[in-house]
Every structure is written in C-alpha cells, then in structure tokens.
C-alpha cells in the first residue's frame, strides 16, 4: 500500500518536473523562465522526495529524503532570487510586452549612487570633449 502511494507521488513529481522544463522552453524571457524553473521543478522534486519517504518510512533513506525538502526550499528560492537580481543588474530587460517595471528606476538610482565619483569624472571628460 505504502509503495503504491509512494509511486503515485513520484509519478506526479516527475510530471511537474516535465511541466517546469516545458515552461523553460516556452516562456519568453529570463524572469518568466525562472518562474517555471523554481516553482514547478521544486514542487516536482519535493513530490519525488516525499514519495521516497513514503516508500521507505522512518529508515535511513526516508529521513534523509525528508530533511532534504527544507534544504531544497532554501536553495531553490535563494538561487531564483539571486539569478533574477543578477540578470537584471547585468542588463537583461523584461519582455517587450510586460505590463509594469517599477524596478528600473531603483536600479538606475543604485547605479548612479554606486559610481558617483566615476560618473563625475567621466562627465567632466565628456564635457570637455
């Protein structure tokens, strides 16, 4: 009985992983792809780990699978955040048909603040040129 439930969970997990990968191919830009990559793939992997836990119960393997779940939660979310932030600061803009972008102003301000001294120097240079 436990084995059946575990196998069903693992199948559902693999299905969600597949959806996540499909999204990775179909969505238009980095940020939307990250959405599918973090959500679907993380839940899919959780389902697989849960299935393993259900199959094996409170043994060495099962408990390891169970405590991998919170570790995966932190790893996936932090990775998604840093990838999105890094992509934006590197210069990838949002998809052309996006609705709003309130982050752009903030990034410009940050960059202006960061190279304040350099900006002043280059400003002088361009002025004289």
């Amino acid at each position: 009985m436990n084995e059946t439930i575990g196998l069903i969970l693992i199948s559902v997990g693999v299905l969600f992983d597949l959806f996540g990968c499909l999204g990775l191919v179909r969505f238009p830009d980095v940020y939307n792809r990250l959405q599918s990559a973090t959500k679907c793939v993380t839940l899919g992997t959780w389902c697989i780990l849960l299935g393993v836990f259900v199959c094996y119960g409170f043994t060495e393997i099962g408990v390891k699978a169970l405590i991998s779940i919170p570790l995966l939660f932190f790893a996936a979310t932090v990775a998604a955040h840093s990838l999105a932030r890094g992509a934006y600061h590197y210069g990838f803009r949002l998809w052309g048909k996006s609705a709003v972008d309130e982050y752009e102003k903030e990034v410009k301000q940050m960059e202006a603040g960061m190279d304040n001294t350099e900006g002043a120097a280059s400003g002088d240079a361009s002025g004289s040129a």
Partner: protein
Amino acid sequence: MRYFAFFILLMGLWLLFTFRVEADSLIVGGICAAVTTAIFGKYFQVRVRCLLEPARYFWAFLYLFIFSWECLKANLDVAYRVLHPKLPINPGIVKIKLNIQSDIGRAMLANSITMTPGTITVDIVEDHIFIHWIYVSTTDPEVYSKKICGRFETYIRRIFE
C-alpha cells in the same frame, strides 16, 4: 548561549543525516559542528529565548499547511500557463512595502513569495520588496500588496517577531 544553541541544532541535523548513534559518527559530527559553529556562529542572529516559546511552533505548524496549499496552487497555475497554447502571461515587476522588521522574517517572507503563485522576489531595497509577477492583474498598490503579501505577513510576524 547563542553559539551553544547553534551547536545543538547542527548536531541534531547531523544525527538525522547519519541516522545512527555510534561513538565514531558522534565524534566526527561533534568536530564538524564545533568547527562550523566557530566559523559561522556569529551569523546565527536568533534570540535563544524565542526558540523555546511553544506558541511560535504552533504558528509555524499552521503556516506549513497554508504554505503547502498556496504552493500547490502556484504549481497548478504555472502548469496551466505552460500548457495553454496561447501562453496567457502579462509579466511585470511591482514594488511592495514591507511591514516586517527582523531580517530572518524578511528572508522567510521573500522565500515564501518566491514559492507562491506567479511571483518571484527580485530584490529588497530598504523597506520595499520588488516582485516579478507573471500575471499583473491590477496596478493598484493596495490591492496587489494584499494579494501577494497579505496571506503570509501575519503568520510570519507571529513566528519570527
């Protein structure tokens, strides 16, 4: 005291990972936990008194269920968008004001937002959190703040503050 609590936590994690209680594994675990505590202990900014209050665990337990439900919804939502032939997305980055002060609470809120329907945390600047949202249905700050953060903020505040 803080270092001691961190050491105990690491040791518990080690015992769960190895899943056997023998002298050699205990010694190796103790050494590893001690080294880790010595290096990273100063980043463990949790008041030890808070770790012992049962009410926090009760709220955390409740939060786990709400979070799982939201997470499941998120996945069905993204799966629907992936499989729909017309790709119904309308993405954008919105800005929301945070009402949580502690660092760990903010981190947990950001992580929770990343795992829930159509939203990814991009950055936190001072008191504002920037969120990439896959389907921007409204541009009114009041409405979307409630829609994105409202479900979690009360719980997070009870757990971490």
